[in-house]
């Protein structure tokens, strides 16, 4: 990879680790299937994750690979796993935890379930994990160089997860890399809000409408669930699902800022770009992370990874 001076691959599988592991640090290991790039491999680096373990296309990484990554970054302080909430990933990381425990390595798992469109709030643990994972990794990575206690870092990471919500809106399916076929059917002129990476059902299907109206619906849901009040601070991540242009994302950003200023909510930071994609899908996602004092400190740590950099 381009930044090979900072990360290296170990073994034969897709296990990427930072070149210089900080001593006496709780490790952060992230992972999932391939084909949502740059999630997860783009987020390994300083004040981000220490290791990413990647499976095959849309398949969870095997417990053996996860264990390999765990061994590589463990500094006797334990390792935190951060991954998106899919059945295969849950099984593989759960198994990896058992294998690590047998070797005396302490681990904790944080499943990210930020997709507010995938299930009602009462069933939050059934929700999918999407772009919010990047914000959770940002907080956890920043915290991991300031907090050297596994349980404490676990609490911080879980709280970051609990204060993160995302939604995807799509107007055209992406095409599978393997065979060029459409991943799902969405009639021309229609959009779906709350949809998943491969067209997994969302919460609202309707005629195409102006971007401001779409953003209004999305932000209403995100800010509502996060119970954002006047003077609350949030971090925003606006992401192209693959074929939506950065120019279009700026339109989304413009509306988000209008909404925030009307509601008196302060946007502490905004990231705009390609963070999580589904091939050539036309659409975008918005993620919001509600900040508090400590989360803001951790979030603001300078970070340097292939797909997320901040001074």
């Amino acid at each position: 990879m381009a930044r090979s001076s900072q990360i290296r691959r170990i073994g034969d599988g897709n296990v990427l680790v930072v070149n210089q592991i900080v001593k006496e640090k709780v490790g952060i290991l992230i992972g999932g299937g391939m084909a949502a790039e740059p999630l997860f491999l783009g987020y390994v680096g300083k004040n981000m994750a220490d290791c990413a373990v990647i499976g095959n296309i849309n398949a969870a990484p095997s417990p053996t690979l996860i264990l390999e990554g765990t061994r590589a970054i463990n500094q006797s302080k334990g390792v935190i796993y951060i991954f998106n909430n899919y059945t295969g990933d849950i099984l593989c990381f759960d198994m990896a935890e058992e294998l690590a425990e047998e070797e005396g390595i302490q681990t904790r798992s944080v499943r990210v379930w930020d997709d507010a469109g995938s299930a009602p709030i009462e069933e939050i643990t059934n929700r999918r994990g999407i772009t919010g994972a990047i914000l959770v990794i940002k907080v956890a990575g920043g915290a991991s160089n300031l907090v050297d206690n596994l349980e404490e870092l676990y609490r911080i990471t879980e709280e970051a997860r609990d204060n993160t919500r995302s939604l995807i809106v799509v107007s055209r399916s992406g095409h599978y890399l393997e065979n060029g076929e459409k991943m799902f059917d969405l009639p021309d002129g229609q959009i779906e809000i709350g949809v998943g990476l491969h067209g997994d059902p969302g919460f609202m299907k309707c005629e195409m409408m102006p971007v401001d109206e779409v953003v209004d619906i999305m932000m209403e849901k995100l800010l509502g669930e996060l119970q954002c009040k006047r003077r609350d601070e949030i971090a925003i991540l606006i992401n192209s699902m693959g074929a939506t242009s950065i120019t279009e994302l700026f339109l989304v950003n413009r509306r988000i800022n209008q909404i925030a200023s009307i509601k008196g909510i302060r946007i502490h930071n905004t990231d705009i770009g390609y963070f999580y994609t589904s091939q050539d899908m036309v659409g975008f996602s918005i993620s919001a992370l509600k900040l508090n004092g400590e989360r803001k400190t951790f979030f603001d740590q300078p970070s340097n990874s292939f797909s997320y950099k901040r001074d």
Partner: protein
Amino acid sequence: MIQSLTVEQVNNMMVFVSKNIVDKQEELNEADRLIGDGDHGNSMALGFNTVQSVLNEKSPETVADVFKKIGNAFISSVGGCAGIIFGTFFRGGSKAIGGQPELNSENFAVFLDAALAAIIKRGGAQAGEKTMIDTLQPAVKVAYQMRSFPLQTSLQRVVEAAFHGMESTKLMLAQTGRSKTYGKKTLGHLDPGSITTYLMFKYMAEYVFGLDKNSF
């Protein structure tokens, strides 16, 4: 009548089971094609082939070691959910029977009970959702009822119970994993994981009956 098996016999029994299930690769794929992505036979063949090579490598010292090796073989060789679930089954069961030097109907029941609990915990599925749990649960129940009988008798009854459990999955709707998306189409078809589970018991029993010089 076979009362119990030595570690070496357990090892040989599982090699026998593995060989026979590998032979069923195509049938298992076919069963999975009806309600899933059609690769269950491939996963099981990969897993049980690896099992054969690790069991032939070096003789384990305890019964638990045999099962743990099998579990690890599944986890390291089979990608995806099937590998983890079958790996969890054998590893979960092996943890419960410690360093015992023989397999009898008593610790066989303990093994099965712990194996079932481990896959329920890991996979999050419940009985009635068209999974191998529906085949295992009745088998565990019978294994407990038979725990003061010779292993041979216990196994015979366990096979019967597993067969009925497997058959019961025909009438169930898949509610977990990828076959969930097939919805009503899963009605009338057996759950492939249940077929493999039943076959494991069937070939275990065949091996044990083969050791008994007095049975036909």
